């Protein structure tokens, strides 16, 4: 067990955890940031995507012990009033079916658009292919990323 200080959504949190605990489970079980989802545990599906210093990162394979100096952002902290252009676009398009993967999709899209504010259709399709949507709302996700890009 170790004591770790995590900077999440601009707030400092102290946690006791085993050093090999993935950030995902610290967020969910210890700190109640439940918007970050468990999907595969091996970084293949993207349901657990958060931002580390603004960059989309899969939290299920990221150890709590290496995050002391990093800025962590979860879906809860992406925007103050849940009105980030990507979140707004998700509403406009009515993207979700079951909705479970959508926090991860939104975090991936927000980070991608930060790096590439005017992506082509093909760039969106490639960038978002790290996130699985089992309900296959892919047409909607693709459209919402384009809508968000237009509004950013």
């Amino acid at each position, binding site marked *: 067990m170790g004591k770790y200080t995590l900077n999440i959504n601009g707030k400092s949190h102290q946690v006791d955890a085993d050093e090999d605990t993935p950030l995902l489970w610290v967020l969910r079980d210890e700190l109640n940031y439940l918007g970050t989802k468990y999907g595969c545990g091996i970084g293949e599906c993207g349901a657990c995507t958060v931002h580390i210093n603004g960059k989309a990162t899969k939290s299920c394979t990221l150890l709590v012990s290496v995050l002391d100096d990093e800025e962590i952002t979860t879906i809860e902290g992406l925007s103050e009033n849940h009105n980030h252009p990507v979140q707004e676009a998700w509403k406009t398009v009515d993207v*979700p079916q*079951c909705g479970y993967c959508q926090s991860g999709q939104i975090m991936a899209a927000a980070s991608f658009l930060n790096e590439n504010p005017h992506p082509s259709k093909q760039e969106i399709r490639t960038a978002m292919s790290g996130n699985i949507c089992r309900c296959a709302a892919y047409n909607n996700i693709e459209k919402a990323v384009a809508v968000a890009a237009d509004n950013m």
Partner: protein
Amino acid sequence: MDNKDNIGFSRRSFIKTSALVGGGMLIGFNFFTSCDTDTVLEVEDLSKLNYDDFNAFIKISKSGKVTIFSPNPEIGQGVKTSMPMLIAEELDIAWKDVNVVQGKWDSVNYKNQYAGGSEGILKAWDPLRQTGATARQMLVNAAAIRWSVEPSSCTTKEGVITNAKGETLGYGDVAIEAAKLDVPEGLKLKEPENFNIIGKDISNVDIHNIISGKPLYGLDYKEEGMVYASVLRPPGFGQGLEKLDDTAARAVTGVIDVITFGNKVGVLAKNTWAAMKGKNALIAEWIELTPGESTKQHNDLMFGFLKGETFTTMRNDGDVDAAFKEADHIVEQEYESPFIPHNCMEPMNFFAHVTDESIRLIGPIQTPEWTASRVAGLLNRDMNDITLEMTRMGGGFGRRLYGDFALEAAELSDKSQMPIKVVFSREDDMTAGTYRPAVKYNMKVAIKDNKITGYHVKEAAISDNMYDLIPNFFPAGSIENYRVDIASYPSNISTGAFRAPHTNSPAVAEHSFFDKVAAHLEISPVKLKIDLLQKVKGNTDDRQLFSAERLEGVINLVTEKSGYGNASNGASQGFSSYFCHNTHVAQVADVEMVDGMPVITKVHCAVDCGIVVNPLGAINQLKGAIIDGIGTAMYGNLSFENGIPQSSNFNNYRMIRMNETPDIEIHFVKNNIAPTGLGEPALPPIGAAIANAIYAASGKRVTKIPFIDYFKKPNNA
């Protein structure tokens, strides 16, 4: 419009009203009795009813805000939005004034609280609108009494009642008085041209909670004192626990206890990670209880069935053997589909707290009633001891019909007396599934004088057949000599319903085969089907569930929209059509070959589901089902060795991703027929549409799922 609007049930039998203590009106309606016209209660039973008897409500507050409790489990199919829309339409309120709340499962009175079979809207269409209309009329009656006017002189709009003099009252103003009035009967429902909510794009009622990351799902549920459990199950089907060393598991920080139950071992811990680590630290030895099965063995068994004679015949018209004996040509093809896991994004999980007094169950489940009864049976408890709350579900697709995970939670909680949440890892989820069964087909037609004279389907399945329920589907009735034969091998691998059960695999085989037969006859597959459909138009055989006219309608619509058969459009296209779950669908897929690989670029889908209640949600369902069907046909494959599943996570089981998805255009047939479901019907035909498009693009007939295997370069195989 269907003239059944005012018949089929007595509203008195399922509607009851009362004034709320805090002001306002509560309308209770027995949703499930109302949806089942065979179980109408007698009016005299009304006196015995109380509000505990009703699991669905409309609550109208003094301020005029309306809360609608949606009783059916929400798995992403959209019923939590579309069912309340039906009530709101007839109640005549503005959708912005509606708040939707997930209703609880009622353990005693109701039998149909489930998600499955694309039946939600179909069964709710009349009764939910009647419920809304009843509430509206009572509010109008209350206003009319206050004004001393005839109710018929009043009109309503968006929650406001207006009389002939132009005076107005809000619903909230008269809700308390309305609650005391008699329940009116024989109300006339709106004509479709007067709909204000039905047919409009309405966003998912949970959209804000989803995009802001609120804890909605079973995996998000937690409470004080709750313990997480990870369960070690036998790695292979047919295996049992022989020996266990849990020393290392108990030494993992956070592990509270290790409990063996049956052939499984639960590791209880303070958090999910410790539970999973503890499980991985268990050292177990397994023995073979029944022989472990392999895919090679299954293939041999199924091909053996297809070559043999031991079938159950599900339908046998005319003389099929004679038709084949007299044929000029016989076209024959085998089709194959492997086991498919559901792979819901939210892995299976459930909360249970079992005490001497009560059993509390909370989590994602498509079948609350059945699951509660199985828990009662398992623990030898009274059903009245059990409460069950349904969370939103991170996908279902049939997997959450089976409450095995809830039973595990209940058993572990019973043994430990602690509140327990069982959490499957992705590997647990994929390897302890209830898979779509592996099946193979032999399809054969007899051709004489360039006409189909005989049709023979043979189906061989591992565990569960599919054609047992659909022998009367198209082309039954349109071919004089027609036979459907089935056989299955009882496996120890657990199988079950997968989105569009009984049609998902047969449709791919059947409608790929039609393409091959059409090519042999040198006619368009569209013409082949339309010609056959003429023979069953006006058919009075009540085994025939599809409408030849409506099927022809969607075929014509998709042909027109996609340009199918028009050589000048330059695309390599595949056509398919199907009827299942009461909805008629036709599809055209476009495929391009890029570097020797098929790329599906476009899908046109024409649908006749009657009135489209919520186009936004309907299009989501249809597109999702199409891409699900493409993913399964292209990549789906779970194989077995010695009973052990050979894939366990998304690194070795391929799921379709965004860069592999086509643009999809949905075209609805516009009519005023009562609506049917959309969760499933677009899935079965798409596999054939892409197989036929791949043939058009590459000249290759793909007959075995996963299709991608036909295109793997030898070095990467």
